[in-house]
């Protein structure tokens, strides 16, 4: 199941997404949390910490700078631009949701 979370900045989108992701994982579901924000900070609310959240941002910025826009698989995105959050949630920071080719 794919769930999108929208709303005004500061309304609690990120907290809602993170708590929901962690809750789903605790219920035994496999969960991928995708941060589609151009200022990604979902990692903080998921509990991966400030450093790791910052590391993912830096990784993604480097993708933005190199002009090689090659089609990458979901697996590659989750692997390269992702990190493991508590409860088994996999967090990945993606630039734009329509860019990657489904793997």
């Amino acid at each position, binding site marked *: *199941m*794919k*769930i*999108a*979370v*929208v*709303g*005004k*900045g*500061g*309304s*609690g*989108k990120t*907290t*809602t997404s*993170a*708590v*929901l992701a*962690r*809750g*789903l994982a605790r*219920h*035994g*579901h*496999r969960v991928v949390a995708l941060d*589609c*924000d*151009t*200022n990604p900070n979902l990692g*903080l*609310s*998921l*509990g991966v*910490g*400030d450093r790791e*959240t910052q590391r993912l941002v830096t990784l993604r910025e480097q993708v933005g700078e190199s002009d090689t826009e090659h089609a990458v698989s979901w697996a590659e995105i989750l692997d390269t631009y992702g990190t493991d959050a*508590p*409860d088994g949630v996999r967090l990945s920071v993606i630039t*734009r*949701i*329509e860019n990657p080719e489904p793997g």
Partner: protein
Amino acid sequence: MEAGIGSLTRLGESAIDVTLVVVEPTPRSIDVARRGLHVADERGQGRVVIVANKISDDADRQRIIGAFGDRPTVFVPEDPAIDAADRRGTSPSDDAPDAPGVQAIEHIIDGLGLPDAVRG
């Protein structure tokens, strides 16, 4: 998603099963949520659930019901534990798993209609 509704407008049609529209009980937040709803409906982004956040009293509830009364709505209470986690940059799921706000968000899961997961 990005603040506002920009990312939603860029999604392909029917890419999403459920859209959660998070809204605070303020006219401005309700205005943005209305736009999000409009885009989600227009582009067929699955079922829509209103997540009414930071609800502190009945007047807050009525503000949300007045705007979105016909939509499935989950009410999440104003919760100092969530604010505290926000200040620290930590997860409310770690800091205060039993806090009312956290519990209310987790209740969203019950309405998703997911099959029971196999517990590892």
